[in-house]
Every structure is written in structure tokens, then in C-alpha cells.
């Protein structure tokens, strides 16, 4: 059953992927092509990568990508080629620079703020638990007195009844 599910999941992927017949001379080239066509975004159909889109521009860019992979260009060279033409937009994994600091480090900053807030809140509660205010002390002792006298009364009542 588990294997059947895995096979089904794998099959469902091939439905979305555009079908091309590209020839490669080695597995590493094929792997590089596959990885880049998944990391590069189609400029026309914006929520798809090059691998998943059937638009004319995605097909052209896949062809270009294939040509570049076969001619032995590096991943960095290919990405630079695409960014030079279509801008940072084509990278699903944007490079780290001043305009993307927010994107890369924002979540960590928020996480830090979250930790700080939790820390402050927990410190506040532990302090108030350790040192109750005068008001609370009075209330507590009053309550205590009340309960003891109440118990005494109950005891007296019950005791007298048992006798």
C-alpha cells in the first residue's frame, strides 16, 4: 500500500511537468538541467518554474538552458545569463544582497523578537509568583483564616452530632 502511494505521487508529478525530448551526454548534465529548470521561474506564467510550464517562453528558455548545459557552462554562469535578461525575478532562490536582506534575515529577526517576548513574559510571571504583592498576602491570609474558622465550625458541628 505504501509503495503504491509513492508510485501514485511520482506519477502525479509527471502530469504537471512539460514534456520535452532533450538529449544529454551524461547523467550529471541531465541532473544539472533538471535542477536548474526547477529553480528558474517562468517569466510569463509566474507561479511555475521552467520545468512545469508549457508557455512558449518557458520552452525557449528550456532550449537555451539545454544548449548552455551541453556547452559546459556552470550553474553560476547560467543563472547570471538568465538574471541579466529577466532580472532577479527568475530565481526562485534569490541571491543575498541589500534588497533581499529582509527576505533572507527577516524571519530570523521575527523569531528573535518572538523569543525575546516569550522570555520577558515568562520572567514577569515567575517574578510575580515568587514575590506576591502586599495586597495578595492580605487576601491570602484572610482567606486562610476564613477557611480554618469554617473548618473548625464544621468539625464542631459534625463532632457534636457524632457524640
Amino acid at each position, binding site marked *: 500500500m505504501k509503495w503504491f502511494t509513492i508510485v501514485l505521487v511520482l506519477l502525479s508529478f509527471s502530469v504537471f511537468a512539460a514534456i520535452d525530448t532533450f538529449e544529454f551526454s551524461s547523467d550529471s548534465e541531465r541532473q544539472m538541467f533538471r535542477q536548474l529548470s526547477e529553480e528558474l521561474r517562468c*517569466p*510569463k506564467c*509566474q507561479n511555475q518554474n521552467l520545468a512545469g510550464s508549457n508557455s*512558449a*517562453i518557458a520552452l*525557449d*528558455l528550456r532550449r*537555451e538552458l539545454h544548449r548552455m548545459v551541453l556547452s559546459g557552462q556552470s550553474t553560476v554562469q547560467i543563472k547570471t545569463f538568465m*538574471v*541579466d*535578461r*529577466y*532580472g*532577479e*525575478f527568475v530565481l526562485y532562490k534569490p541571491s543575498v544582497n541589500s534588497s533581499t536582506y529582509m527576505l533572507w534575515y527577516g524571519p530570523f529577526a521575527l523569531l528573535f523578537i518572538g523569543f525575546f517576548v516569550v522570555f520577558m513574559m515568562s520572567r514577569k510571571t515567575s517574578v510575580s509568583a515568587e514575590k506576591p504583592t502586599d495586597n495578595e498576602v492580605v487576601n491570602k491570609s484572610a482567606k486562610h483564616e476564613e477557611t480554618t474558622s469554617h473548618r473548625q465550625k464544621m468539625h464542631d458541628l459534625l463532632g457534636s452530632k457524632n457524640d
Partner: protein
Amino acid sequence: MSMRRVLLFIPLVICIVLGFLFAKGLPLNPTELPSAKIGKPFPAFSLATIRNANEVLTEASLKGEVRLVNVWATWCPTCKQEHSFLNKLAQAEGVEIIGINYKDQRNKASEWLKRYRDPYVFNLYDEQGSLGLDLGVYGAPETYIVDAQAIIRYRHVGEVNARVWVELKAKMLALGWSPKKS
């Protein structure tokens, strides 16, 4: 007001800041990408024109004047829609428009220019879409403002109409273009 009270206003401040951010982002069209080529020289090319297969032009042919460069094709419906407006621009405003016939067929393009009139100074025949790729074209029609030094100054993706022209004209005037009545 105690420190604790002040802290209670933090969510409100965050809400207001986010509100402004979203209000600013809402009217933006996410399908309109900023061109990576703004401020860069027009990519090098060597292409024949539509009217003459033996007339090969290079990027040097773009220098000397502030012009529009219009990427079009006969298979593109929006190009047909904007064509009459381009005719009007060329005639009434004296705008020099250079065409890039993008991934098309020469005979179809010639036929089109004969039938709907020709607003272009000349048309580059980019059959393979190689110049389109170097320009970062992702869908016809696209219209670029190219200055006298053949540097790309602006890109508009989609139809050029009266509303878009107001914007383009302002940018062209700022670059030293002057309307010529012919």
C-alpha cells in the same frame, strides 16, 4: 502610562504599518516585471530586415535619436489591437518606431504591414527570437524607449494605447525627444 500599557499598542502599530504596505502594493500589477535591461545598452544583434533579407543591421542602427522599439508578431492578438495606435503615433506625432518582428514568418509579416499600414522605420526580422531573448522579452507586445546612445530607458509590456502613450511621451520628452509633425 505604564510600560505594560505601551506594549499593548505594538500589535496596533504593526497593523497600521502592514496596512500601509499592502495599500501601496495592492495597485501594482505582479505580471508587469521590471526590465533587467533599464539603463543598459541595447543588446548586440545582426539581423536582416523584413523588407529586405539582404539588408543586415546591427545595434548601431538604433543610435542618433530617441525612439520606440516595438516587439510584435502576427500571431499576437494584442499586437493587432495596438497596431492602429502605432500608425497614429508615427503619423500624427512623428514618433520613430523600430519594429522587432519576433518569432514570426517574413511573408506573414510583410502581408500584415501591407494590409494594416506600416508605422515602422524598419523591422528587424528576429525569426529565432534570439534578440528577444537577449532583450528579456517574455511576451509580445513589448515597447521599449531607447535613447540616442541606444541605451534602454523604459519598457512597457502589453498594448500601447492613449493612456500608455501619455506616460511614454513624458519619458521621451525628458530624454530630449521632440514631436515632429510630418
